[in-house]
């Protein structure tokens, strides 16, 4: 029987609850957003006792569906001031599903300065005082210590120094299937919310657990559809398997949308030094892994393991966003420096998208020089130290821009953009502007070729973004990775899978309705929190400054942005 766990951090009480029937067809983002709308005061302070940190595996977690092991975390965001959901791969969701836990809701806030660890195992949920010397550690050391104490097979969700300092760029780390803290619920400062509740880590041990979150009614049919879908994914996603997401560097550069020198140019002359081929060759020559699965059962395996010049492990899951924002966007052409930045962000518990942008804004503000290869490493270390400048940077690009008097801050609702310039990828720009999550590419990415649109032109982008936002919300609610594809064929597979899972017809329209309802919930929360249509705009400079080399501006009309959520 699936259950919801409540952890009250004010009085340290733990309780188990039945799942209300209205949550039955929800999971992942759909469930975190619903619970936040139902239970969190939208006007609350994100770091105060009234905010809640809600953790939920997806609706399909624990099934054999490929990529279904993503874990969602939600709260009111200290970065955007609105609702937030951020998800990651790794092993946490699969283990929670096996323990029959549909959601963990962390509420309240300790009145003292003690730090805690939440341990979840079969028939045992416990809030433990964190040992003094665990506090102040990065995610790598935290994971090692916890695995030593609780066993190698545990899943861990933890915060690093940034979360402890309650910084708005703080992430929550999730161990991958090799036990490495390289998968992160990165966006929106959820690590700060966890830090505000004085929770250093959650340990999940599924030893001897054998529960299910979803009881599959027609198992044979479900498995047959799943096998067929997996075969399709293996063929269709081969590019991601071989080269990972950095295969995007070349095409995004070619269409003039690769953020360069703090979003002041759309093309980088040294792109070939940081592109998919160079990364794959570098990894292979040093004995790393160019293809790697972050969670058991993933057939796409887009991740990687990167070794340093001496052949020693440095970091995992070096992604397009990280490579670009710590590469071209700060005019750094060294993959080794990018990999070191990624390692530091993973260890200190920082969102690489927010921090790549923050350092670019800091460089524009004169704190360091673009192209200086030591600078990003030094600045990230300041964040982990908690120095005054580190505290500024750890609040993200928007705060850093204010402190340093920089106008060119590529952020919406306070959250910095991913590695697509919205003047060149206009549909992604529409999503950045209108997503209830702030500037988030995963909320509905409009990559070239999507719906047959030319990304450089504004025609049809609002409608395209609407469709993608609805479908991305569905994928996030199922707990799947968006790399299965955010498109109609995937909705059709999900319709067939869910029909056989629940034993009654679940049409494609029903599936899309789930996505629409979740988005409506999120928009409703944001309105109650004071975020409205006027916050659904890109920063002014995107409409004014022409982006070289294609001389493009963001010219999707405000009235079209206001129509995106008409559904």
């Amino acid at each position, binding site marked *: 029987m699936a259950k919801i766990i409540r952890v009250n951090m004010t009085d340290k009480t733990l309780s188990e609850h039945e799942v209300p029937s209205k949550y039955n067809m929800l999971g992942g983002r759909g469930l975190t957003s619903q619970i936040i709308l139902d239970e969190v005061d939208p006007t609350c302070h994100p770091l105060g006792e009234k905010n809640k940190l809600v953790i939920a595996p997806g609706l399909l977690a624990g099934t054999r569906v490929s990529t279904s092991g993503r874990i969602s975390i939600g709260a009111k965001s200290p970065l955007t001031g609105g609702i937030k959901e951020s998800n990651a791969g790794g092993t946490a969701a699969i283990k929670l599903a096996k323990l029959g836990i549909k959601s963990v809701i962390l509420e309240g806030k300790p009145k003292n300065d003690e730090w805690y660890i939440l341990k979840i195992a079969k028939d045992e949920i416990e809030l433990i005082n964190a040992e003094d010397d665990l506090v102040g550690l990065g995610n790598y050391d935290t994971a090692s210590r916890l695995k030593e104490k609780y066993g190698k097979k545990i899943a861990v969700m933890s915060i690093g120094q940034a979360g402890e300092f309650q910084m708005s760029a703080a992430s929550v780390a999730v161990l991958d299937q090799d036990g490495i803290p390289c998968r992160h619920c990165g966006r929106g400062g959820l690590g700060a919310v966890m830090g505000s509740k004085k929770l250093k880590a959650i340990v999940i041990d599924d030893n001897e657990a054998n529960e299910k979150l979803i009881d599959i009614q027609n198992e044979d049919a479900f498995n047959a559809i799943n096998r067929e879908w997996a075969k399709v994914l293996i063929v269709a996603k*081969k590019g*991601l398997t071989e080269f*990972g997401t950095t*295969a995007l560097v070349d095409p995004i550069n070619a*269409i003039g949308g690769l953020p360069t020198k703090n979003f002041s140019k759309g093309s980088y002359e040294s792109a070939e030094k940081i592109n998919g081929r160079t990364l794959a060759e570098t990894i292979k020559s040093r004995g790393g892994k160019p293809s790697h699965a972050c969670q058991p059962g993933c057939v796409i395996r887009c991740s990687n393991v990167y070794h340093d010049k001496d052949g020693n492990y440095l970091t995992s899951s070096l992604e397009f966003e990280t490579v670009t924002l710590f590469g071209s966007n700060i005019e750094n052409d060294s993959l080794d420096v990018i990999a070191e930045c990624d390692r530091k962000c993973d260890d200190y518990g920082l969102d690489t998208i927010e921090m790549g942008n923050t350092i670019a804004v800091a460089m524009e503000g004169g704190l360091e020089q673009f192209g200086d290869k030591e600078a990003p490493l030094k600045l990230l270390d300041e964040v982990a130290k908690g120095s005054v400048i580190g505290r500024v940077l750890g609040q993200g690009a928007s705060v850093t821009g204010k402190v340093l008097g920089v106008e060119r801050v590529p952020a919406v609702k306070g959250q910095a953009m991913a590695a697509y310039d919205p003047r060149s990828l206009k549909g992604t720009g529409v999503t950045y502007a209108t997503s209830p999550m702030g500037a988030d590419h995963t909320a509905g990415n409009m990559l070239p070729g999507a719906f047959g649109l030319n990304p450089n032109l504004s025609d049809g982008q609002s409608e395209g973004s609407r469709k993608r936002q609805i479908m991305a919300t569905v994928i996030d609610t199922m707990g799947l990775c968006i790399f299965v594809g955010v498109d109609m064929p995937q909705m059709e597979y999900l319709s067939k899978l869910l029909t056989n899972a629940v034993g009654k017809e679940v049409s494609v329209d029903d599936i899309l309705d789930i996505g629409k309802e979740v988005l409506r919930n999120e928009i409703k929360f944001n309105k109650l929190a004071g975020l409205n249509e006027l916050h659904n705009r890109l920063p002014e400079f995107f409409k004014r400054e022409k982006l070289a*080399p294609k001389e493009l501006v963001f010219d999707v009309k405000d009235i079209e942005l206001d129509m995106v959520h008409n559904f």
Partner: protein
Amino acid sequence: MKVTVKVHLILTKYQINLTNNQNTNIELSEKSLVKDLIKSINIPIEEIGMVLVNGTIVKNDHILKENDIIQIYPPIIGG
């Protein structure tokens, strides 16, 4: 007429003479279309996501001319 072709690394498996971001000159008959070029270098059309001619995104029926630089990409996924 002569055109210059660059093929994205994911597509290079189809054409050993073309490598990632290396300029390769190809002879085509006058007024060839983008889709004629794609056929001539043996890449299945369904594997093509985006084509740029001289930096501008074009459709498959775009007419090529002498000295055009053509970039060919698979459907763009990931991010």
